[in-house]
């Protein structure tokens, strides 16, 4: 009997081993991809961030010089400022807008699938070159937006080429692409148990009270999820500013997103060492903000379990 058990165990072990090998075989392309096109370049860029490296030449180790340089680099400071403004204005605006639309769509409207698709569409197009070009046309002095504003008695020039307003157009573009968080909010809203909302209603809670005291707390994990994703995505916004400013971050640095400055430094000015340092600072900042958010989430995100 013991022998039979041993034989069976050995057979099971061999089968498990075979299954593991097959599993690793299937995982191999992913593992190779992560190693070759993510980890190796990441480690390389970390090393390069401590060097003076121009494309086409050999890297020369300079220690922390690239990191020190940032503090006296006006373009770095401008890029950090523009990006911070963009992130901290556009993300809350976009999430608020997305949540509001999701709540409206969750009221049992007919043709929900159509509305959902229509509102989601800008999310698919938002980061595209075509939309950035369209935006440029819409907000130029002869574009549709100034024309409509003129009919309402509001005189506005070309927002695209005015340093005071160029970033505003990019914030509006970001808010307009609210479809993706909206879909996630809508899915979250649909998971909220109807009986809890009904119970609050029976207890005399009005619509606003039901929203703030029942729906929002139950939805907070989804809000948190959207917040993290949008925060990270917004720090890395690039295409819109690249197209609208013709790759310059202008007018007068007003749309110089961090990633755009990183690109210009690396691929226009060929300062790959400095660009690598810029990339690592971005990585660290995003990592820290994400960590802070996770800590803060303990105080406002409520999980059912």
């Amino acid at each position, binding site marked *: 009997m013991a022998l039979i058990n041993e034989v069976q165990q050995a057979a099971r072990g061999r089968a498990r081993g075979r299954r593991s090998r097959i599993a690793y075989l299937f995982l191999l392309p992913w593992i190779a991809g992560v190693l070759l*096109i*993510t980890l*190796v*370049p*990441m480690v*390389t*860029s*970390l090393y*390069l*961030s401590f060097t003076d490296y*121009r*494309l*086409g*030449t050999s890297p020369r180790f300079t220690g922390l010089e690239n990191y020190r340089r940032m503090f006296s680099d006006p373009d770095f400071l401008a890029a950090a400022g523009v990006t911070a403004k963009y992130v901290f204005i556009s993300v809350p605006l976009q999430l608020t807008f997305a949540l509001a639309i999701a709540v409206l769509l969750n009221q049992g409207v007919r043709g929900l699938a159509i509305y959902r698709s229509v509102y989601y569409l800008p999310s698919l197009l938002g980061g595209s070159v075509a939309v950035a070009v369209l935006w*440029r046309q819409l907000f*130029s*002095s002869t574009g549709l937006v100034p024309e409509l504003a003129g009919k309402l008695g509001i005189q506005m*020039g*070309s927002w*695209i*080429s*005015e*340093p005071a307003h160029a970033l505003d157009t990019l914030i509006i573009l970001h808010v307009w692409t609210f479809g993706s968080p909206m879909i996630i909010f809508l899915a979250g809203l649909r998971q909220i148990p109807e009986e809890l909302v009904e119970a609050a209603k029976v207890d005399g809670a009005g619509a606003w009270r039901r929203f703030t005291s029942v729906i929002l707390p139950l939805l907070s*994990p*989804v809000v*948190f*999820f959207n917040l*993290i*994703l949008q925060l*990270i995505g917004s*720090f*890395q916004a690039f295409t819109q500013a690249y197209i609208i400013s013709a790759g*310059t971050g*202008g*007018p*007068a*640095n007003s749309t110089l997103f961090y*990633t755009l400055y*990183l*690109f*210009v430094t*690396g*691929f*226009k*000015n*060929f300062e*790959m060492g400095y660009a*690598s340092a*810029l*990339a*690592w600072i*971005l*990585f660290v900042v*995003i*990592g820290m903000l*994400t960590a802070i958010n*996770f800590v803060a989430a303990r105080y406002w995100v409520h*999980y*059912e*379990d």
Partner: protein
Amino acid sequence: MAMSVPLSRLSRRSVLRLAGGLGAAAVAGPALVACGDSSGSGSGPSKSASLRFMFWGSDDRVKRFQKASTAFTDKNPTIKVSPEFGDIDAIETKITVAMSGKNLPDVFWVTSDLLPQLVAGGHVMDLTSHLGAGKGIADAGFSDAIKAPGRLDGKQYAMTHGLQSIGLFAKKNVLDEVGIPVKNYPDSYTWDEYAQISAKIHSAKGDKFFGTDDPNTGGAADWFGAYARQHDQDMWAENGDLGFTKDLMTEWLNYWKNLRDTKASVPTALALEQNPYFEGAPMIRGLAAYHMRNSNQMLELQGLTKDALVLMPCPGNGGAGTKAIALSPNMLCVAANTKNPDAALKFADYLLNDVDRAKIIGTTIGAPPTQTVRDAIATSVTPAEKQFLTYIGFEAGAKTRPVRGGLATSGAFSSDMVKAWKNLAYDKASIQQTVDLIFGDLRTKLLKK
């Protein structure tokens, strides 16, 4: 450990946390990865001569080069050419990345800003010993001035493929309406005349029409380069340092400030609400009489308007100023590590000297570098192109001072200088601050080894 939890037992919390973490990694990773050193792989050794040819330009130019490449293969069946193309910025980026990965195309265009960088890294073939009948690239008819832009340290690393320079475009009907004469070589407006004329046009045509666009905010540093040459200075000194004085730069910036203040030039915000060239050029958009850009754009600009255009010299480049004329041609390189050097040289020779090729390409890349080929295509081009050929013909034959190349950092310097000019035009800095920046931080970066 979280990964070992069965999916069915995952809580909402763990799913969201996992997704958040993965999201952070997925979204933040590429910025770091983008800066890593990617080593591109070569196309591999091949016995059949297969060449990659990279250039930049519009759809029309792409079609023409595809046709020319096919015509070359028809003449040389053993050599296949694969054109690679994109807009100039994308191609510059591709070349720099390919340079880093030692995967440059066999034959490719290069900007004058990028050439010193390529030479410094040993990425382009020294063509000096391959020039001459039977040596690879025939250079009969290539004057010294035509070859100069591709020469560094006495060696020929690039050959002029399409001749071009700066040129002043105007709508003839506007000039006639306001009573302003057209100037052709050997004459030109003086800079003072140009300011007066531009102001006069604004006065005559009303508040929404201006005399000229502003090349400084339009991103073209060549116009200041011309101004410097007219004052016996230059963009670059022999050692690669700045070749102009603070006083000259101040004078230039004051000149353009005066044009903005008098509304002789298009307001900056209005000019830059579109990319200020081709269909976005203020002249094409009906905002200005003059457009300061590259002379080889004559054909494409004429195609964008029904009004007849005229091409005139840069102010100050006529009269006694013709010695200041500078050509800034499209240049052709051969990769140092090409696996098919003979085929690459043969293709380069075809691109530079073949009359049939020149007829296919026309003047969109600039004029053919030799008078023989220019004469050969003169009968088959449009009137607009003829104007350009006459214009460039004069410049190519003029006795001029040689143009000096810059350091490997000169491209980045020019971009930063244009950016500083734009900040000035937007009143984000004073002229003094702009000049101090150029001669301070920007110069330090230029000279950094």
